[in-house]
């Protein structure tokens, strides 16, 4: 029993160790990052955080911004919207963060956005693709930006790819009804695909956490589609892919950036060969900007950066760029600089911020061969 009593203390002592050392000299400019470091989507928060820290450390090696070093503070939200709201409030009011970075999932960014507006601190979301994150009804949120494209664009990209490159005309949709991202992508894909002359032969749904998809897949099989659009997250997508093959269906699957995780290939074990998904970037893109980033990331973390790491890197770099251009380090000044971003050369493409604070930039389509994603094409807005 004595050991049992001492355990939490020991854990707390251990956990308390990795504290950031305070840099000497001028007061650092603090980037507050809210991410899902634990929970179902832990790889999303982890990748984004690595990208952000890489960008910040590179800038610090170049002497920081306006003579001041940069610092990052990351708070976990466990993948829950209400936790994201409290974490954002804490970063902005207690830690006085200059810029708020996050979140990956739109439902969490939606909980953070009103807080950024309230405290007049610019927020940059690396990869929340739901339109409502930056635009609440008819009003653009003044302090909220993103460096990724939005769901309508991602859905239409895959519709174009399916019609123009894959030359398919009959597609089935399998969407995660519990996930706004998946529902959004599926709706925009269906609209564009029909506009381009294709037909949606089946529209089935599942819920995140499901293990068995045979019922939906059997229903889809009966309609004989040429491809299946599954805009979900990686865990379910990989399981769906395997069960598709187990049912003897050979159709390729298509999806969005929610597929982007090394876990996808670990679980799918080759079942996704021939499938394709839209993403923010490809690490195989020969452009020197991307190759330099991939090399730096690999040197530091020992793994190939995924799209979310690239988006996190770009979010931090756009914020750094805006602070450099802003006449002073204050919320409104940085916001104005962010809104004026034009032709910024990011890893995920050349980014221009439009009137609704969305990034206008190309999307890449990745094709899976031999259980790994390979760059297929770039589709411009």
């Amino acid at each position, binding site marked *: *029993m004595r050991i*049992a*009593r001492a*355990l*939490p203390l020991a*854990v*707390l002592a*251990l*956990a*308390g160790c990795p504290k950031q050392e305070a840099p000497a000299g001028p007061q650092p400019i603090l980037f507050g990052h809210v991410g899902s*470091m*634990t929970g179902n989507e832990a790889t999303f928060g982890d990748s984004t955080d690595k990208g952000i820290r890489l960008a910040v450390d590179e800038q610090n090696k170049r002497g920081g911004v306006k003579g001041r070093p940069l610092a990052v503070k*990351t*708070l*976990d939200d*466990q993948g*829950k*919207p*209400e936790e994201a*709201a*409290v*974490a954002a*409030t*804490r970063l*902005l*009011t*207690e830690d006085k963060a200059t810029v708020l970075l996050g979140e990956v999932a*739109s*439902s969490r960014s*939606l*909980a953070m956005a*009103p807080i950024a507006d*309230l*405290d007049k601190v610019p927020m940059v979301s690396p990869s929340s693709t*739901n339109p*409502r994150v930056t635009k*609440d*009804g008819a009003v653009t949120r003044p302090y909220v930006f993103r460096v990724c494209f939005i769901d309508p664009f991602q859905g239409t990209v895959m519709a174009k790819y399916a019609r123009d490159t894959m030359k398919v005309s009959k597609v089935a949709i399998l969407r995660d*009804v*519990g*996930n*706004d991202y*998946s*529902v*959004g992508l599926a709706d925009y894909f269906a609209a564009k695909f029909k506009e381009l002359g294709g037909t949606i032969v089946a529209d089935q749904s599942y*819920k995140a956490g499901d293990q068995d998809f045979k019922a939906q897949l059997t229903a889809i099989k009966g309609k004989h589609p040429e491809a299946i659009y599954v805009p979900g997250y990686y865990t379910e997508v990989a399981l769906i892919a395997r069960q598709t093959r187990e049912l003897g269906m050979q159709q390729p699957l298509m999806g969005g950036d929610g597929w982007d995780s090394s876990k996808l290939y670990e679980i799918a074990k080759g079942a996704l060969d021939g499938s394709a998904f839209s993403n923010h970037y490809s690490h195989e893109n020969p452009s020197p900007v991307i190759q330099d980033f991939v090399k730096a990331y690999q040197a530091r973390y020992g793994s190939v950066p995924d799209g979310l790491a690239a988006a996190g890197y770009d979010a931090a770099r756009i914020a750094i760029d805006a602070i450099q251009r802003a006449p002073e380090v204050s919320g409104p000044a940085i916001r104005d600089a962010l809104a004026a971003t034009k032709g910024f050369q990011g890893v995920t493409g050349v980014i221009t911020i439009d009137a609704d604070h969305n990034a206008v930039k190309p999307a890449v389509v990745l094709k899976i061969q031999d259980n790994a994603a390979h760059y297929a094409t770039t589709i411009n807005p």
Partner: protein
Amino acid sequence: MRAPGLALRSLLPFLLGLPALLALQGSLSDFWASVLITAGVNVILAVSLNVVNGFTGQFSIGHAGFMAVGAYTAAKITLAAAGWAPAGLPPRLADGAVFLLALLAGMVTAALAGLLVGMPSLRLRGDYLAIVTLGFNEIIRVIIENTAFLGRATGLSGLPRRTTFAWAWMGVIATVVMARRLLGSTHGRALLAIREDEVAAEAMGVDTTGYKVKAFVVSSAFAGLAGGLLVHLIQLCTPRTFTFVKSIEVVVMVVLGGLGSVTGSAVAAFGLTLALEGLREVQEYRMVAYSLLLIVLMLTRPTGLFGTREAWDWLPRLPWRRRPEEGA
């Protein structure tokens, strides 16, 4: 002689609480206000669930479902009333009135949902009730996720920020007063009798199902209040907030504080919220530390922090204070 005294006992906490809360509110930073509001919401949830799980001895794990019903009702009302400004009323007062109305409506719909679920399922006992309530929780969430009117999986965004520290803690006072007054009443005694021995209670003429349903309805209403308060803090109403994980969190708070102890569940809910916030700094180890805390507490105090006792049971007996005879 008794009636005015009783009314005073119920009203006094509100009359003393409001000015104190308003005074405290002015000195709180935004961050502390939002942490304390979250803590307050959790206290409301834990104390109201204690009415079913602690007083009545039933096992419900669908509290988040009722929260969702109250939250969506309140959110729909404040959204519909956005921009509505009656002539002759200062806007702050009008907003407050709309919010109060929305919260009350949320409580009513949550209570109706409680009645709907309670009527058939409270004839069941133990594990069976747990499964039914869990099922209800999921049904509510799935219905919301498939209803366009409720914003599907994205939920309702753009809610006004209405929940302040004073609002949340007035809700806490209301919940605690309700629980304490209930426990001292005929109803409360009947609930305790059901918890101690359902067969014996029935043999003594207690309408067991009737009392259980009533307790369930009251508990659901306050879960609805907590839901309404929470979504007007985070300004977003999404089904992701009301998963069964949330229900389990509330059950943990109740068990940790002591089944049947109002102050116990309030202290546990408050303490756990603050502990989780404090542990946020340690990132990945946060949930490990939290889980270890729970395990150690359960090993060392299996009846929960307070057992079935209340905080003031440990106070020395003051000459002017009569200790009410507790049945438990």
